[in-house]
């Protein structure tokens, strides 16, 4: 029972690496799982999610990587990021060096105050969640809505369905609202 092949493999041109980073409890891992499910629902792309976190239930650095490709994904972890979401200053400082030179930087400027002098998209996801939705817990979903607007990795309706399928019962309205706010806020940035 042997599997052999000599197909010439090559790095897929569309390998796209995303990192969602913040502190434990901000829902980065939840966000990455939902994003993967949405990408899976949207098409035939391969996707790998991996995570690292400390032993704490809250606090501590937390990151989750999502790698998307239409070809077989060899290495499952991010090597050089195409998109970095940073929800805290600590996460930004720690992971910014992993971002490609022309990679996309998305920042929650509720908590991040020092942003590198380069192209980036900054919106206060946490403040928007608190003030516009009324629940600080959905800041990660606001950020997902923004990522959806800023990239073409997944359509808005598919992402919304994936979020609602995973979210606890009774939180549908606030999650739907969170994703819309994130999406619309990011669209404003795009138009500038």
């Amino acid at each position, binding site marked *: *029972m*042997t*599997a*052999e*092949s*000599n*197909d*010439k*493999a*090559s*790095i897929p041109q569309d390998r796209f690496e995303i990192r969602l980073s913040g502190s434990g409890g901000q829902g980065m891992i939840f966000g990455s*799982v939902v994003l*993967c*499910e949405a*990408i*899976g629902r949207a098409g035939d792309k*391969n*996707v*790998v*999610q*991996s*995570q690292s*976190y400390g*032993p704490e239930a809250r606090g501590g650095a937390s990151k989750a990587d999502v790698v998307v490709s239409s070809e077989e*994904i*060899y*290495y*499952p*972890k991010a*090597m050089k990021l195409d998109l970095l979401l940073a929800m805290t200053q600590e996460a930004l400082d720690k992971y910014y060096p992993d971002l490609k030179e022309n990679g996309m930087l998305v920042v929650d400027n509720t908590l991040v105050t020092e942003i590198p002098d380069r192209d980036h998209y900054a919106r206060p996801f946490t403040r928007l969640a608190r003030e516009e939705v009324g629940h600080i817990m959905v800041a990660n979903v606001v950020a997902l809505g923004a990522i959806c607007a800023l990239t073409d990795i997944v359509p808005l309706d598919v992402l919304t369905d994936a979020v609602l399928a995973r979210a606890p019962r009774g939180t549908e309205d606030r999650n739907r609202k969170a994703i819309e706010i994130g999406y619309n806020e990011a669209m404003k940035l795009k138009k500038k």
Partner: protein
Amino acid sequence: MAEPVKRLLQGNGACVEGAIYAGLKFYAGYPITPSTEIAEACARQLPRIGGRFIQMEDEIASMAAIVGASVSGLKSMTATSGPGYSLMLENIGYAYMTETPCVIVNVQRGGPSTGLPTKISQSDTMQARWGSHGDFTSVAVAPSTVGDTITETIRAFNLAERFRTPVTILLDEVIGHSREIVTLPQPGQYEIVNRVKPTVKPEKFVPFELTANGVSPMPAYGEGYRYNVTGLTHDVMGFATNRADEIQAKLDKLRNKIANYEDEIQKLRVEMMDDADVAFITYGSVSRAALQATSLARQAGKKVGSIQLYTVWPFAYDRIKELCSRCKKVIVAELNMGQVVHEVEKVVCSDTEIHTLQRYDGEILTPEQLLEKLEEVL
């Protein structure tokens, strides 16, 4: 055929999907990071299909329980990590001696002792070969992706049933916890092997009869076939023996039933080796870094290939020897201080240089590290 079902699964969840597909009906275990999701999924899923899940008081008891369940006719499994695997070894030896099919999953983390609960390692590779005392021939498979974990788990169950032997699945923290979208196996898509049952009348039954292939038919307890099950070296009737000829026959049986079919157990993934000057030899999640590095090196015009061990034990000495004889250098990359490399050294001739790349700081080897090593040896 029904529409294929795609799902986002962790490696640990994929292991359970594969196990249930293969016929798992009994799980006993004691939760331990990074294997706990296997216990959780079994606790959820087994009762729905008429199976049983038991959380035991420790790993020694878990292993005893799955041996007992298997002797009773159920396909059984347990999952653990290094510290638990150490505790299971005594009863894994009992499974070898009593020729009881069962599957043990070791989602490896750093050691020795309680080591690194949330960090990856491949330092139990040799333990899966030699962990229990005494002479025996072990079988261990090593998936490297979530999708692989489904098919390799099915294969592990099939090998256990076919050869009446415990089989270890060497997972690691990265595969166990990573999520990938996989297509669930369809009914009938993969062959499922079930242990051969006796066809003679119970009074004519010889429980450890030496058959042509070395595997004795195995009844389930309660089916009317009465026999003795003991960890003592036994004769064909299952009773302890001190006769030299019977002792040797039993140990030969344990070895030969597997050794005579090694080529059907061994499975490699061989990529771009036709014209390779240098080969990576890897297994488990490191194989993914090796494939990435190989493909990047090829783009840069370097003649590099990759050999991945899906079957770690029994080691594919002949195939490795043959593949390595064609290249000038091999790099054995592992997440330990050097385990499989010694098996490679046994068979690779002096004309081929053997280099090692070992990482044991709790992190996975990266493609960059493999490429750096490649530059160094070229």
